[in-house]
């Protein structure tokens, strides 16, 4: 299992620059999720790693071996595609064994391997069928099986769950998580779905316009996003961003805006003071889950417009002055639509951003 290093990898399609020089490292045996909105270059990164696209500049190393000129077959990778990419004219067993048959492995070994993988994925009874005779979920499993049969060192997943319905997707997500534990392989997983990224990734790489915004564990990214993009992209419902300005009263820093006036937690206040640029205007970021009914000493007056019942949780769409704020509450806390209540904000989770650079303070 190699350690994979992207060294200033660039990619342009004609005059369109998809990846500006990209530096990225995938540690041995790590499950890395590349996540970002469509067009952020995550799929291109994966396809370059697979060898399906050439690089326009830079080099990729597997350990110390440069591989950017190698054909996909020389890279020891397996890949699961978004549309499964099964061979329509072959039955499932033939689909799964294609690579081994090309590799001229002995027949008994091929049969044994296919059966073993089919057993673990629970698709043994499908081996004689053609892909067209399978449901979406089964095809997905076969695509996974085809990759597993290869026994490659690195597994690449290109949005493998996005063609499945919500229920099946959740199920396959769990199975993937199990697979991640069971297999000691490099895995690179591309998705635009932040839930998949958070639940599957040991390490998440958030990309936007070909640039890595932040990488780290799901918790790190959720709790300490570096900028507004990451804060807004990860977490559901999405983070509230409100315009505010900093004031100082009795030696304590506060952030004020239309309809709110909140004190800053001491660490945050210290970080603000450390800045030398005398920043006054800021963007306040509050996660919907950081707002609750319990008083915290930092209160917000919010008028509920809509209450979305989601089962155990409810999401309130509220207004604070003229700005919309989402609040996530236990469903047992019934809030009347139209009512104005005082909510407590968990100050330690409050984030401030520089409106010009969008970086977190």
């Amino acid at each position, binding site marked *: 299992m190699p350690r994979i290093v992207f060294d200033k990898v660039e990619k342009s399609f004609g005059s369109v620059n998809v990846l500006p020089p990209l530096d990225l490292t995938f540690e041995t045996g790590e499950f890395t999720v590349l996540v970002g909105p469509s067009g952020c270059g995550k799929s291109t990164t994966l396809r370059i790693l697979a060898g399906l696209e050439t690089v326009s500049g830079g080099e990729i190393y597997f350990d110390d071996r440069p591989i950017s000129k190698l054909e996909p077959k020389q890279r020891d990778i397996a890949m699961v595609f978004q549309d499964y*990419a099964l061979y329509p004219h072959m039955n499932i067993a033939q689909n799964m064994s294609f690579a081994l048959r090309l590799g001229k492995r002995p027949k008994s070994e091929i049969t044994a391997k296919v059966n073993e993988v089919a057993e673990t994925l629970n698709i043994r009874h499908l081996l004689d069928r053609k892909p067209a005779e399978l449901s979406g979920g089964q095809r997905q499993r076969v695509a996974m099986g*085809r990759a597993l049969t290869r026994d490659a060192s690195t597994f690449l997943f290109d949005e493998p769950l996005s063609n499945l319905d919500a229920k099946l997707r959740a199920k396959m997500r769990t199975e993937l998580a199990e697979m991640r534990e069971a297999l000691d392989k490099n895995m690179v997983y591309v998705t635009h779905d932040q839930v998949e990224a958070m639940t599957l990734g040991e390490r998440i790489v958030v990309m936007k316009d070909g640039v890595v915004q932040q990488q780290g564990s799901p918790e790190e990214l959720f709790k300490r996003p570096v900028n507004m993009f990451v804060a807004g992209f990860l977490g559901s419902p999405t983070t509230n961003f409100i315009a505010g300005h900093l004031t100082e009263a009795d030696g304590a820093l506060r952030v004020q805006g239309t309809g709110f006036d909140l004190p800053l937690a001491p660490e945050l206040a210290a970080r603000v003071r450390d800045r030398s640029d005398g920043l006054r205007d800021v963007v306040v970021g509050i996660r919907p889950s950081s707002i609750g009914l319990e008083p915290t000493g930092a209160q917000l007056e919010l008028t509920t417009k809509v209450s979305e019942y989601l089962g155990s949780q409810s999401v309130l769409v509220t207004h604070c002055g003229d700005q919309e704020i989402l609040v996530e509450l236990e469903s047992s806390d019934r809030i009347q639509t139209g009512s104005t209540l005082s909510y407590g904000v968990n100050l330690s989770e409050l984030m401030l951003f520089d409106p010009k650079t969008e970086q977190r303070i």
Partner: protein
Amino acid sequence: MTTARANRFTPYLFLAPAALILAVALMYPIGYMVYASFLDWNPSQTIGEAEWVGLRNYVNLWSDAAFLESLGVTLSFTAVVVVIEMILGVGLALLLDRELRGMAVLRTLFILPMMIAPIVVGLMWRYMYHPTVGIFNRTLKSLGFEPIPWLSDGSWAFASVVIADVWQWTPFIFILSLAALQSMPRSALEAARIDGATGWQITLFIKLPLMMPVLIVTALLRLIDSFKVLEVILVLTNGGPGLSTEIMSLRISRTASEFRELGVAAAMSNYLLILLMLITMAMFTYTKIQERRTAAQRAASEEA
């Protein structure tokens, strides 16, 4: 009549003109031909004066050496051109299925021969095959080779008409193959690359099998067409020298006009018609089997 009943008849009303034209322009001549094939009929007689001979025309044809020769020529011509055209057409499509500069122009150029009227193609090739002033023999001569009797030697004449037909109809297979290639799921080809298949292996194990349904129908269409070929050969060799390039349609036309045996010509036409119907039915059966298989697979996937 109620509106509902009137509505039920409307489609038939709209179909009636087409049905009438078909009956007059297609069914009547075919019926006429089938009837004529049972007659000993000379063009100077009206059809009513012709003598009824039953199946004699059909039976006699099997001992008619010239007919058998012509049948043989037709079968070998068809087999040779379809095989060559399939190989060239599919090969070209595989080569040209890529993004290169000027590919659009190239593709248009490739399908140009198909757009030229067969008579013109025949004339064009006749000039090129001309023993003294034709471009082939002039080129051969200037390179110091012996001129080739393109149209005056039996075997060469057969080769010459094959070349002209291949030149004209390879593009047909080329465009259909290209369309099949371009509608192929790209990701399956990429998956094959990841699975370690070389370019040849992808062609052999993925592309060709996936193209097969289109290729089979294309081959059957070409088969039907090449059985009916007439103009190019008529202009190039008129069936000669000897009977070396006399395909069925030429034989039929000569039997009717030169030998003045309308009944025999009709019987020959019917043999050709039966042959073509068999191929057409094979094609329809094949498409139907394909459709049924797809439907069964769809049903299975919905059940799964």
